[in-house]
């Protein structure tokens, strides 16, 4: 792979995403998996926005982040036994 100093933020985001996925797969409790899933969401949002600098890409990244946060909220609320939000 060609070494490039301007690509270091992208490499950091990708490595953090893979690390978070491995921690999710080796975790036993469901609610602690959601915390590692949050780390993966941050890293994936960074990867989306760093790919192409365009305003629609920013909207796609924000839509992905808010949607996945809503999903984690619904899973945690239902697992805790309360009513699911929305």
């Amino acid at each position, binding site marked *: *792979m060609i070494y490039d100093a301007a*690509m270091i933020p*992208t*490499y950091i985001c*990708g490595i953090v*995403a*893979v690390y978070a*996925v*491995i921690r*999710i*797969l080796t975790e036993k*409790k*469901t609610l602690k*998996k*959601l915390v590692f*899933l949050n780390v*993966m*969401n941050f890293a*994936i949002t960074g*990867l*989306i926005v760093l*790919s*192409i600098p*365009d305003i*629609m*890409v920013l*909207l*796609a990244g924000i*839509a*992905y982040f808010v*949607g*996945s946060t*809503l*999903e*984690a909220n*619904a*899973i945690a609320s*239902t*697992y*805790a*036994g309360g009513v*699911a939000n*929305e």
Partner: protein
Amino acid sequence: MNEFYIAILSLIALLGVISVYFKKSPFDKLIGLAIMMGGVIPLIVIKGYLDVAILVAIIMPLTTIFILQATGRNTDES
């Protein structure tokens, strides 16, 4: 650049699919689906289909919420 993206994202999507197949609890299966979509949506973005990516990112949590409303409360012990 594109080689790094494709390697990382396809690895994440494959790990998510494997997690969906092997885990027993339904909540763990939903978390596996979330991992899989996290790998797929950036692959749509780097090909340039931005409207499709926004639509998929909005529809994904809605399907999860509908599944959770249909199946009801937590009944398993894990």
